[in-house]
């Protein structure tokens, strides 16, 4: 036979949590009507960056594809020709694909990139209805042209020489791209 406490008090006490929670702030997120910002270093969709004159930073070296544990990246390099310069230096990435059905957003590709061409944005809405639309091409991944940038192909426009080009940019963002590579 249950005691008085068990039969009367315990059911009420059980609701205590419910009553208490009723007066707290709700956790429910109103996604997709109300989008919450991610953590600043959240691993979202990739982006192929540009130099301030609009040339692509990607040199088509395929190190990202090499690093990728999910084999989600496909790159083909090509030669920068006279009058057809897409990036500084000899080589640029002619084909650049990331398959977001495979990508696990681990960020190893970002670590592998020797020119900081590949970084990750905070964009996390990576769902769609077809396989094709989830294989992002270079045109989908390239960073938008900011003011002062010019759509390649064009010649290098920062400084008179190749050295000036890179040294003119030794701000925080471009530091690992040159010079200290053998450290």
């Amino acid at each position, binding site marked *: 036979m249950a005691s008085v406490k068990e039969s009367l008090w315990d059911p009420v006490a059980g609701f205590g949590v419910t009553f208490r929670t009723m007066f707290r702030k709700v956790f429910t997120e109103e996604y997709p009507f109300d989008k919450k910002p991610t953590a600043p270093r959240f691993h979202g969709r990739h982006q192929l960056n540009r130099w301030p004159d609009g040339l692509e930073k990607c*040199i*088509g*070296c*395929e*190190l990202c*594809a*090499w690093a990728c544990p999910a084999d989600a990246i496909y790159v*083909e*390099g*090509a*030669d920068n020709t006279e009058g057809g310069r897409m990036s500084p*230096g*000899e*080589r640029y990435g002619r084909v650049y694909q990331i398959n977001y059905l495979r990508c696990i957003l681990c960020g190893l590709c970002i670590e592998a990139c*020797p*020119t900081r061409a590949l970084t990750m944005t905070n964009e996390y809405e990576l769902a769609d209805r077809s396989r094709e639309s989830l294989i992002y091409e270079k045109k989908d991944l390239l960073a938008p042209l900011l003011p002062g940038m010019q759509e390649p192909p064009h010649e290098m426009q920062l400084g008179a020489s190749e050295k000036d080009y890179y040294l003119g940019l030794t701000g925080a963002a471009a530091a690992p791209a040159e010079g200290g*590579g*053998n*450290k």
Partner: protein
Amino acid sequence: MTIANNTVNPSAEVERTDLVTVTIDDLEVKVPKNTLAIRAAEQAGIQIPRFCDHPLLEPVGACRQCLVEVPDAGNGRGMPKPQASCTLAVADGMVIRTQVTSPVADKAQHGNMEFLLINHPLDCPVCDKGGECPLQNQAMSNGYGETRFHEIKRTFPKPINISAEVLLDRERCVLCARCTRFSEQIAGDPFIALIERGALQQVGIYEKEPFESYFSGNAIQICPVGALTSAAYRFRSRPFDLVSVPTVAEHDSSGAAIRADYRRGKVMRRLSGDDPEVNEEWISDRDRFAFNYATTGDRLTHPLIREDGELRPASWPEALNFAAEKLTAARGSAAVLTGGRLTLEDAYAYSKFARVALGSNDIDFRSRPHSPEEADFLAAAVAGTGLGTTFGDLERAGSILLAGFEPEEEAPTVFLRLRKGVRKNGTKVFTVASLASRGVEKLSGVVVPAAPGTEAAVLADLRSAGETGAAAKESLGADSIIIVGERLASVPGAYSAALRLALDTGAQLAWIPRRAGDRGALEAGCLPGLLPGGRLVTDPQARVDLQAAWGVDSLPGTVGKDTGEILAAAGSLQALVVAGVEIDDLPDPAAALAALEAAPFVVSFEVRNSQVTEHADVIFPVVPPAEKDGTFMNWEGRERSFPVVLQVPAAMPDVRALAALTQEMGLSLGFSTAAAAKKEYDELGRWDGDRAQEPTYQAGPALGAFDSTRLSTWRMLIDDSRSNDGEPHLVATARKPVAKISLTTSRRVGVTDGDELVVSTDAGSIRLPVVVTAMPDNVVWLPTNSADSHVRRSLHADHGSIVTIAGGNA
């Protein structure tokens, strides 16, 4: 590279009396005297880092990366400083300590690596060598992780073309001299050298002489850094996403071992394989770079049937049915032409198809100038003889006589082996030819002058050809080899004379054809008088043997028609089956085209659109070698099997298409895959019964018996052949076509070096700059199939034809 057997093998050790014992990292190894320390260490399983050292090149000690400590030089005294193990010959009792056990050697290597990296750019991500770079790898294994060099690196403009195919990036060069040593020692094209001194030392080319080499791709492959890269493979791929398949080159009869690297269903590059018996580690640029011919956009993808004069696509069953109906009706009056591209298995399938399904011996693989004498010679001396003269024999021969054969142009792998023999063993090379080509000069070859058409007379009596002929005759003996090429087919009596010369002198005789499939086609019986394995059509016993093996009641017993006769009789034949024949290779392309038009029914098995498919009634698309497996039999008689490189679903190799066609005709070929065809061919074996008699054709007139101008011609390695299509960088390295005449002839015509010369026949003319050189008078030499010089198409002429020459301004 000779290394003694280090395993427990008492008998071998007793045989080798010149073994010395050295101690490397406390391990005792026995190696032959004068072995280099770096090789001895390899025997002990110790890898010493190196850049300049290459087992097939002479030691140079240029890079200093292989430093080791030698505490005892074999005389009880140590060497005061670390030594380069790639130039250090071992002595008995020597003690060597490598980086494994010696901190001194390890520090020396680390220091040297740091030194090499001072001026080496850090552009590994854009460098084509990245990922398979000995410098990258050894910097990781034997280098410091940190650099102490913060000054400005030496820079050069990059990259520069040292030929159309080879790019040089001087910043990356570590001055190991592998490329320059290869060019000088192996290829013999020393137009590339180390120039300048000190920090500015660099690889350079002579500005006056272009770096023209048929072997430049090897320098790219052995470059231990990314200093030499190829224009064709520039930025195409990375080693990690390439799949490598060992295979065999299809451009000449040497069967060189190569490695095909593919990515996403497309071959990206080809590298030399390592086969000491055949091509060692070298291949020609054509074997390396010419592989795009099947992907240039004119590939046949589905069967085609001609209806009311127009070709229309058809399904395989429909096309097979259509062809089978006509061929069944044409049984006994049909002929087969198989070109030089076929594998042994494919050729065997065509051979059996002709006999079993078409009931005919009218089959010939020779889509080039040919003669009945050549067929007799092949039946008597080559077919069914198995592995005869080998590459090793070429290297060790005392003297070699070439007749109608240009090694560098027709079989570059043979050329390299000959050159090795000339350099290492003092082999003497004589050539019966109208002039000394650059290849022969690089072999230090002696020309026995023979105007075109007189080679037979010269071979019959070498002494008649002056001093050099007498010297050639003198040198021929049991350790000699006579090499005959396919060009002798244009010279009546030449094969007979060469055979007799071989018998008289005791020399070996080797036939080296130009194309990869020729020897295999011969062994498979793609000749009007030959059945597989060297069996003679006219030999009843051989026929009975084959009937039993094939399970047929009878085989045609009369010798069939050869290529020329088939084409001449095309109008009266009911059907013609053509596989991989290039019309412009035939002696008279116009007549061949007329024959194709005259033939009532033409079945074509082709990879790409060609002049044959334009006239075919049914076209079956077959696959190139990269998409099938099979065997090329090289000129030695060695079987060079290769696997499928690119797996293509529903690929139809010739053998499978023929099997389907035979089945459609209500008969059976007995196999439908290359493997099954090979098994049947092997079980058949070589014929051990009677062989054909040696041909005894009479030689033509001797030198000086004519006064009209004769044409001397041979094909260049890199020419307008369709197999070079899709590779502009390679084609750009072709030698500039010129006409060559003697001084006397030039005076007669009134031209000097550099003037234009017009060579003409009734069919047309060729206009080329002229080079005056030492050669018989009244002879003009032209490349057979180079740019602006298509001898067969323009002149309908051949080696030995009579032509007219005139100055270009006349």
